[in-house]
């Protein structure tokens, strides 16, 4: 596992499981309660944040630092820091009179580069099996940091100047790539999002010659390379492939199958493109799993690396990423998500109000399919084994959710995980196969409950209402006789209180009201939806 999977993917060799690289940037700060600024400035925080991410997200590879302003800062761009995002460049030195000749290639000691190097070294030691990604700002994006949007106009009006700039920024790329490889990075990712804003001809003219050299340089240093782009960059994917990185990584703005075809054509690895905002940041765990399965199904097992489209938003709920980990590592979870997805949400829910009210105890096992899912099989066998113990009182059924009706049954019982055991419609064992005695105890408990319920449900009250005591006497006698004849435990209350009469809206007297007490729940607080069902029954 770990980096071997990534290296295999880079070589387009089949892996038994798709490698997974969550792009944890300042999100690492969230995991340890440090804001983006504090996090991205301190190797101690970054090591702690990434360690937390590695424990929770079980990645095969991870970026050391995701911040495309490091080189710009070292070259004199002013930054504005933020609480929950990487900093933004707010001044472009080359617009403010600084010439290219006055700039020099950042050294290992400049800006925050030492923090990145330090973080890399510590992580390398701590997690030797993990592929460490050193991220460098792509030469075009760095050019934009230095020159602002004038770079676009320059491409039209002063091509020579832009070539000189690109020459310089790509030398910066090479220098940083060298530092990071030396520190222990296994992969260098050139991240050049601003190239999404230019056309393929401009890309070929101004980006290809320089980035290609950087990828050659990375190869010569025996490291792997990746080319990241975010935004609407579909027009340039083929040009990116021609630059010969080992891998292309894209975000949700580009269809994954398009990139798969293109990378296949150029025999490259490819990665992406979990939706950052709508799914990872704002979606639920289920949304995240569904999205991950979609990506995995398109990506396949040769050359694909599952990752978010770009730097994870800082506040991405960790649960959503952990949900993806389940999908990455567990075939069954993946199959479940896939099956659930087909059926969608437009299911007719069953009315479960009276479920489990029969004399027998019903044990339902929700499975993927006990024939193809090992945990499901063991769960079914566990139930099968203990059922005879109850001599016909317990009835069990398997509901393989490959069948439509089983899915609607599963949803009606509010079951979310596979496999699950429900006893009389109540979720009792989720995912783990219960030991024999626990299962027996759970069923026995239900049998006892039912017995108690049966006794208590006989309780009730008969209310006799009249305007005077006399008027009620005959009614009382008759009710009493009936109770004696049936032997039921009932209370009789007689009332001549006008207010009580009025509260029942009684006009003609005497009147008899029968109230039935039914124990519906004990030792737990039922869901509002369930209580509503009872109320409807009154």
């Amino acid at each position, binding site marked *: 596992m770990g980096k071997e999977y990534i290296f295999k993917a880079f070589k387009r060799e089949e892996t038994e499981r798709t490698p997974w690289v969550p792009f944890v940037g300042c999100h690492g700060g969230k995991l340890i309660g440090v804001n983006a600024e504090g996090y991205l400035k301190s190797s101690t925080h970054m090591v702690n944040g990434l360690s937390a991410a590695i424990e929770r997200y079980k990645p095969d590879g991870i970026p050391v630092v995701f911040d495309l302003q490091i080189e710009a800062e070292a070259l004199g761009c002013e930054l504005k820091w*933020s609480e929950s*995002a990487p900093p933004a460049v707010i001044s472009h030195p080359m617009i403010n009179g600084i010439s290219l000749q006055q700039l020099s290639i950042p050294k290992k000691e400049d800006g925050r580069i030492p923090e990145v190097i330090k973080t890399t070294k510590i992580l390398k030691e701590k997690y030797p099996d993990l592929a460490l990604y050193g991220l460098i700002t792509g030469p075009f994006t760095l050019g934009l940091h230095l020159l602002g949007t004038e770079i676009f106009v320059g491409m*039209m009006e002063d091509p020579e100047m832009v070539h000189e700039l690109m020459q310089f920024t790509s030398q910066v790329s090479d220098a940083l790539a060298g530092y990071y490889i030396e520190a222990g990075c296994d992969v260098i990712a050139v991240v050049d999002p601003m190239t999404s804003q230019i056309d393929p001809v401009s890309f070929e003219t101004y980006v290809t010659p320089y980035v290609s050299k950087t990828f050659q340089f990375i190869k010569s240093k025996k490291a792997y390379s990746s080319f990241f782009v975010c935004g609407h960059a579909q027009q340039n994917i083929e040009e990116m492939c021609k630059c010969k990185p080992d891998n292309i990584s894209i975000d949700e703005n580009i269809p994954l199958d398009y990139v798969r075809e293109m990378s296949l054509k150029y025999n490259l690895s490819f990665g992406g493109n979990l939706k950052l*905002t709508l799914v990872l940041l704002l979606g639920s765990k289920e949304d995240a799993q569904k999205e991950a399965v979609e990506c995995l199904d398109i990506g396949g097992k040769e050359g694909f690396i599952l990752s978010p489209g770009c730097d994870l938003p800082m506040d991405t709920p960790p649960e959503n990423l952990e949900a993806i980990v389940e999908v990455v590592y567990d075939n069954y979870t993946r199959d479940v998500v896939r099956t659930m997805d087909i059926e969608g949400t437009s299911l007719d829910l069953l009315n479960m109000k009276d479920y489990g009210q029969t004399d027998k105890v019903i044990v339902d096992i929700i499975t993927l399919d006990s024939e193809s899912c090992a945990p499901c099989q063991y769960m079914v066998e566990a139930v099968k084994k203990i059922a005879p113990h109850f001599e016909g009182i317990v009835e069990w059924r398997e509901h393989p959710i490959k069948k439509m009706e089983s899915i609607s049954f599963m949803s009606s019982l509010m079951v979310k995980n596979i496999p699950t055991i429900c006893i009389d419609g109540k979720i009792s064992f989720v995912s783990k196969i219960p030991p024999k005695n626990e299962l027996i105890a759970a069923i026995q408990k239900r049998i006892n409950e039912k017995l108690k319920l049966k006794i208590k449900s006989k309780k009730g009250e008969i209310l006799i209402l009249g305007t005077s005591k006399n008027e009620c006497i005959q009614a009382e006698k008759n009710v009493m006789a009936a109770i004696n004849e049936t032997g039921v435990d009932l209370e009789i209350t007689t009332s001549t209180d006008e207010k009580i009469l009025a509260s029942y809206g009684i006009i003609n007297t005497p009147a008899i009201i029968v109230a039935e007490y039914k124990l519906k729940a004990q030792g737990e607080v039922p869901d509002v939806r369930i209580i509503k069902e009872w109320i409807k029954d009154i």
Partner: protein
Amino acid sequence: MSEILEKIAYCVEFGKINQQSPYPPDMKGQLGADELTKEALDTGLAPEDILKKGLVIGMERIGIKFRENKVFVPQVLMSAKAMSTAIEHLKPFFQSGDVKRSGIFIIGTVAGDLHDIGKNLVSMMVEGNGWEVVDLGTDVSADKFVNAIKDNPGSHVGLSALLTTTMINMEHILKEVKAASPETRVLIGGAPVSEDFKNKIGADFYSPDPQGAVEYLNSLVA
């Protein structure tokens, strides 16, 4: 009359700023939007016609090409540059009231976000399509938007964001704007923004490209 307007439209479409400009290479040495607009005014053409039958036509064409991925940011910036050079000549007529513009559009990048490329593109396209644009810049708070609406009654608002983290701020600004001025239409855009997100926060309009915003705004005054 229409010949010079067509030439102006062509210069805007292809980003020919003035005679000295080396771009586009095949128009080297020819007159650009700058000289042609001045010439059109000198020959007595109505400033409003120059705007709406010349500049706007050129901007519209480049806007459509941008939407169709035929051109990208550099080309659009050149067009916008040509357009704004030409519009300099028309400014006095805007102030005197001789040229009526379609309406006022307030735009800004939302609080916490300092990215302005997309915002500037939309701003230039909307202006080039005959609207007055009040550009509040970047990192703009809800208060600033609300105050700008008060200063410019009947205006509409565009919110831009590049970051997933700041895109979330759109919802708050939208609410404040709608609370202060329910009839103001709020348009949103930016790389992480989508139609789904628009629906989620309840904004009036989303477009993945500037031309969409132009067309929506024009539909409001049609």
